[in-house]
């Protein structure tokens, strides 16, 4: 137990002293999750809206497929993305394997079903009188779409938070697609796995605390935003 407590204090020291290795992993994690969240929200929000708002043939089957993808194992996504990005794979020529962009592609695949499914649920729960109200006030199709999205913003924030939680804490994709290369593709989670394996608990705990802190800051910011609205 003592080594855990000692590790905790050393971790505080590492964070305060600005340990380069620790902050490199933090920087890589923030960058890669920013890319993947931007991509998944850009694709996922309109897709979720379409899935929740419109009735079309095959909608139920599509919804079932999206819900199934919610349980995608990260190592499986890592495997598939690796197979596509490896030199002999179909996207090998782009040289994305062992890069942050490669990890971001994998994390986008991970986050996308979460964003689509939860946005679709939020849109489905939307009051049908909203559409009637907006049309009767003179909204055109584009205004109808934008205002409807704004009305379900809290549901979309919840979807984004959920997806962010998944991409920030995943290890499988970052490890397999990124290769855990020091100063380059080492993220907080892959660093924790590595440092723990080496018996370096202090670094592992420091990174874990930072992970928690980032999560806390994101949640508090969104909560403040929600209150303001």
């Amino acid at each position, binding site marked *: 137990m003592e080594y855990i407590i000692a590790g905790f204090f050393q971790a505080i020291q590492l964070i305060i002293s600005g340990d380069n290795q620790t902050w490199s992993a933090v920087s890589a994690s923030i960058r890669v999750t920013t890319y993947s969240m931007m991509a998944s929200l850009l694709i996922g929000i309109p897709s979720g809206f379409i899935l929740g708002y419109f009735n079309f043939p095959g909608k139920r089957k599509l919804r079932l497929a999206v819900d199934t993808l919610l349980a995608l194992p990260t190592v499986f996504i890592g495997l598939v993305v690796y197979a596509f990005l490896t030199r002999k794979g179909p996207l090998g020529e782009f040289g994305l394997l062992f890069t942050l962009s490669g990890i971001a592609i994998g994390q986008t695949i991970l986050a996308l079903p979460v964003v689509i499914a939860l946005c679709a649920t939020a849109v489905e729960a939307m*009051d049908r009188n909203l559409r009637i109200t907006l049309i009767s*006030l003179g909204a055109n199709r584009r205004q109808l779409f934008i205002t409807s999205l*704004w009305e379900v913003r809290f549901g979309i924030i919840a979807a984004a938070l959920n997806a962010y939680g998944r991409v920030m804490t995943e290890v499988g994709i970052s490890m397999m697609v990124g290769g855990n290369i020091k100063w380059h593709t080492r993220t907080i989670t892959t660093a924790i796995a590595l440092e723990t394996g080496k018996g370096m608990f202090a670094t592992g705990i420091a990174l874990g605390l930072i992970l928690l802190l980032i999560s806390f800051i994101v949640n508090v910011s969104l909560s403040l935003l929600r209150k303001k609205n």
Partner: protein
Amino acid sequence: MSQAPIYRIQNLVHQYHSSTVLEIDELTIPKHTIVGLAGPNGSGKTTLLKMLAFIEKPSKGLIWFDENKAEPFSSKVRFQVTYLPQVPYLMKRTVIDNITYGLKIRKDPGDHRQKCFEALSMVGLSGEEFADRKWFELSGGEAQRVALAARLILKPRVLLLDEPTANVDENSSRMIRRASLLAREKWNTTVLIASHDLDWLMNICDDMIYLFQGQLSGRGKYNILFGPFYQDAEGVWWKQIGTGQRFMISRPPLKNSAAVILSSDMHIFSQTDSTFPESNTVRGMLTNLRIEKSRSKVIATILVDGFQFIADLSEEQKQNSNFYPGKEVLLSFNPNNIKWQ
């Protein structure tokens, strides 16, 4: 030369899941009128209003607006017609943002706060007190009034109201009624109102449209009895009024025919009146007396087990003070005077 109607419906059919809910061959609504829409639940009133508001496209048929073919999102109607649903929806924002949403869409250059205050005042709410409230800080009646203010601020050419006073308190109901009339007074707005409150409709409307089972069953100000009708063992046809009382009727030509009885053919009697007929009489309460603007006659509204009827007072009845709101009266008509539609 008469003015072209604001609406003209031709061969309109609307279906939900292959079941026809509205079927109107021909209907016109004149400009600048207040038209009441009456009929039992499920008769198609809301569907018709949604079609006229261009929120839904009819399965078949055409709706002409101001002599132009129009459909949802058409630029010819988008800023002309507005509809207030029975259950209002307020967006998750402040009252002023809800009320001025339509102005923003229209890129209206005016002082939106000032206009919002004026619209709130039309529905009897104080701008200072309500403009900055959030959507969840309103009672049901206040929310309905804010929703109406969001329509009135647009100075619409057509205002469509679906049971605007159904779920609100008495004060809100009074304010909504007043504001609906103000729209026509101020901007010559054509107003269509669907309501179960026949008394109110008869009072304010220039014309009445009756719907039954998705079809037009009559037009004008009169009593109308919708089915189901039933025949007793002796072959006499009846219409049950409420739980216990019934009116004898002539034989309905069709299953879904509606019986029209003019107010001049409906007679009321005091319980002490020795002249009342013993057959085909029901007991009710006189709820309102009003003077018909055009024909200088006094019309009584009588409530019988939740059903409203109108009857002209005779010259003699007008002279005596035996009829007043709250008085129990007897109501009767001759089944042979029914006009079936």
